[in-house]
């Protein structure tokens, strides 16, 4: 029977569930014109959740519900940043949603449920919890992608996401069942010990391969990346920004739980597979991004390549590698929210601002937005002194440390190729003249402007002072 202690350990999640239900009720009884109350309440709910996560953090990792749920340092960091991303998404999305008549209560509730999924997933101590969290996250995401139900593109994206997502979940579940068959346990901690002594190592490896496919799909690593471009482009930008941020943290958490906490002893096997995924993602992501003309699609391919870099950190399979991959996931989440935030700040009713050419001459129309976008682009490209550079630096370092110098060189080469398309965005904003007869009107929401500015400037500030964050990331992976 669960006791009070178990409930306290899970307090942030339980609180969010209750809050989401209350918000849903509140929305049902509220007039549409009072929706901004809901908006600010949702933000407050998420911020309180961050407080609960950090303040209730136990010194040592603790387990609840018979090991189903783990609360440790890794979970703390991932939850903090996932919740932070959701708060950012809420702030950025309001005017965008209002312009498109999508300013509805479901957006907030679904988003909160999705982040509860993220939190469960990164705290999973059992294969069942992994699956539970994952499904909660993805089912909410399917609905969010289809939020704009009158749009053909959105619906197509949602169907594609759903079909491929269901397939991947099936693969993952199949893999889990194989692993269960080989070790007779679902508990990740027990699995860790049992994996070494299994009588059927081939069955275990077979299961592991399917689990890696599931992880690859959730990360969006090539060759399991097919859904990413369509979903990024088809979903409303307010949803794309979410899919591009918090679930990446979740995917890292899932990979860490399954591969390290569960199958850490098989690292010699999965390292090679992850290295292959990394090379493919770097190649496909960077090369295909070059020919994109749609900004959201470009960022989608850029995500794929960034997941390749994240895998470079995981390949290390040691505390340093995990710390660098975690650092990378955080940096990507912050860059992704800022990039899509700028797109939303420039979009307005009837104008999505999603073609690269829509940014033409932005520096003359709005120097500040152009400057923020430039920071994001240089950070994504990995040019110092921006945050993204140090994230790349750390994953390259862990790849070299793992003895995979060749992999680091591949990463370096694709960083150069990737540079081109980020520079192209800067070029369009700064070097091209604005198209005559068009105008760029900024969203007038002051909260959006302020928070977006802070978000993008953080990339510069964290680039100058990334020590504390790295220290935090390192402290949660004991050597």
């Amino acid at each position, binding site marked *: 029977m669960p006791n009070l202690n178990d409930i306290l350990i899970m307090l942030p999640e339980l609180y969010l569930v209750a809050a989401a239900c209350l918000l849903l009720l509140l929305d049902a009884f509220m007039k549409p014109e009072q929706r901004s109350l809901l908006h600010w309440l949702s933000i407050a709910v998420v911020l309180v959740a961050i407080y609960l996560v950090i303040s209730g953090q136990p010194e040592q990792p603790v387990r609840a519900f018979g090991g189903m749920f783990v609360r440790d340092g890794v979970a703390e960091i991932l939850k903090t940043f996932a919740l932070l991303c959701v708060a950012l998404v809420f702030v950025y999305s309001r005017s965008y949603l209002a312009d498109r008549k999508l300013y509805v209560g479901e957006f907030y509730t679904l988003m909160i449920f999705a982040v509860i999924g993220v939190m469960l997933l990164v705290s999973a101590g059992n294969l069942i919890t992994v699956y539970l969290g994952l499904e909660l996250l993805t089912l909410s995401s399917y609905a969010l992608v289809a939020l704009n139900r009158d749009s053909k593109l959105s619906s197509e994206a949602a169907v594609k996401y759903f079909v491929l997502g269901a397939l991947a979940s099936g693969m993952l579940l199949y893999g889990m069942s194989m692993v269960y068959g080989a070790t007779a346990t679902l508990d990740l901690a027990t699995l860790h010990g049992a994996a070494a002594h299994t009588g059927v190592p081939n069955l275990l490896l077979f299961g592991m391969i399917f689990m890696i496919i599931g992880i690859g799909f959730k990360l969006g690593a090539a060759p399991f990346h097919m859904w990413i471009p369509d979903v990024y482009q088809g979903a409303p930008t307010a949803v794309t920004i979410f899919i591009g941020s918090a679930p990446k943290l979740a995917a890292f958490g899932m990979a860490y739980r399954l591969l390290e906490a569960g199958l850490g002893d098989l690292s010699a096997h999965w390292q090679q597979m992850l290295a292959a995924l990394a090379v493919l993602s770097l190649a496909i992501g960077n090369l295909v991004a070059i020919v994109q003309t749609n900004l959201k699609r470009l960022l989608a391919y850029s995500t794929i390549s960034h997941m390749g870099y994240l895998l470079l950190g995981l390949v290390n399979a040691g505390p340093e590698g995990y710390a660098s991959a975690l650092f990378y996931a955080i940096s990507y989440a912050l860059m992704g929210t800022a990039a899509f935030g700028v797109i939303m700040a420039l979009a307005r009713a009837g104008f999505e601002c999603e073609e690269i050419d829509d940014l033409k001459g932005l520096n003359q129309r709005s120097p500040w937005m152009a400057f923020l976008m430039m920071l994001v682009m240089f950070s994504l490209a990995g040019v*110092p002194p921006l945050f993204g550079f140090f994230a790349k630096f750390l994953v*390259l370092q862990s790849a070299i440390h793992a003895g995979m110098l060749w992999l680091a060189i591949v990463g370096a080469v694709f960083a*150069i190729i990737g540079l081109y398309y980020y*520079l192209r965005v800067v070029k369009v904003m700064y070097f091209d003249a604005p198209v005559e007869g068009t105008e760029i009107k900024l969203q007038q929401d002051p909260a959006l402007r302020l928070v977006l500015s802070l978000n993008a400037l953080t990339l510069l500030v964290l680039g100058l002072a990334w020590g504390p964050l790295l*220290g935090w990331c390192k402290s949660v992976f004991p050597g």
Partner: protein
Amino acid sequence: MFNHLLSLLIWLPIVGAIPVLLAGSGRPNTARWISLLVAVLTFVLSLFLLTQYNAADSSKQLGESYLWIASLGVHYGLAVDGIAVALILLTSFVGILVIVGAWEVIQNRPHQYMAAMLVLEGLMIGVFCATDALLFYVFFEAMLIPMFILIGIWGGPRRVYATLKFFIYTFLGSIFMLVGLIYLYLKAGSFDLATLAALPLSMREQTWLFFAFLAAFAVKVPMVPVHTWLPDAHVEAPTGGSVVLAAVMLKIGGYGFLRFSLPIVPDASEAYAWVVIGLSLIAVVYIGYIALVQDDMKKLVAYSSVAHMGFVTLGIFIAFMLVRGAGNLDATKLGMQGAMVQMISHGFVSGAMFSCIGVLYDRLHSRQIKDYGGVINVMPWFGFFYVLFAMANSGLPGTSGFVGEFQVILASFQANPWIALFAAFTLIIGAAYTLWMVKRVLWGEVTNPHVAEMKDINGREAFVLIAFAAAVIALGVWPQPLIHLMDSSVSQLVQQLGNHKI
């Protein structure tokens, strides 16, 4: 204040760029004056280096070190030696002149131009001060961002092509250096340059690292065959961009060889010195011939920069043949010194040449030599400066261009007379392409009616050209203070060259 002199020098221009940007496009004059004030302040601060730096002491001075990233042991470490002091002075000197030079010329969003220049200046000073390899890399790469913007916004018709090529080319070179640095870090547990210099490395490791460093710095210098970005960047860049690029940025390549290749991988540098020497000679002779056939003045000076920078790399790497082959320390020092003097001198001369071309371009909006002719008839004062800088560019004794080249040729003669012979070709080719350009631009009859309408230089332009002229002549007539400033640091470097790591 003097405890943080180097930090001040780096951050003053960078932070100073913020008020310049805030002054905004509405008040361009405020932005101009603020940026001039910041540049002058930086220059004045850099003059304190001369009083604070003790040239007799060969160790690195004015050091600052703070733990930057505790969990990796990376330091924000700054310190300078004589070579760095000279280069910082050059940077802050040029920093003022490009601001003054752009005063009325840049009408399109001048505040952004000035801010980019100031940020660039601060970052370049940072490169010369850094004693931590990661910090060096950060400054080295961050420099590309303002330059990318400068060429891309205020450049010529093919600016986008040129600036993308510039950025990607340089990034390509340096990312391999990053991989090399990470490798070194994992081996030494530190990014401190002094620690890395003391780290024993096998020949195989040194060879790989040598080529990683070569990739980064050869692109920056630039050496043949990776010099092709330079003519494009120079031709398309606005005048100020060309001046900074030629006067300071190229020097960072040479400086990198001194800080990385020589102390960290000395044995590989010795083994492959012939590669660098060969490429330098090709730069001196072959690129000289290419400069001869250019129709575009900026391209001509750009190619002549490649040829002149060939002397820098030649002077640095000839040292290996001298010190390890023959144990000839005096000649080694002479070559190294020549390379350093050449760096500073080329900074002044090329900056001045590009400023002159900028003056012409502002009047006629053409860089083609054939559009000019007889300029001396309408612009006598301009003609005076142009001839002076052209003489310096071709290495006339009495100008700064002579000193460094002469020292390098003398040193290489002691290593191998054939090398000296090829290097000495520059005296002929350099004179040929520079003076022929002068002949076609300045002398003769005025054939183009637009040339007849050109006005002589105004006070602002005169200020820039006089400043450059003073530096060129001072350095040519009396190079002793500069040589003295760098003397102990050069001796120290020469001593280091003798240390084997295997």
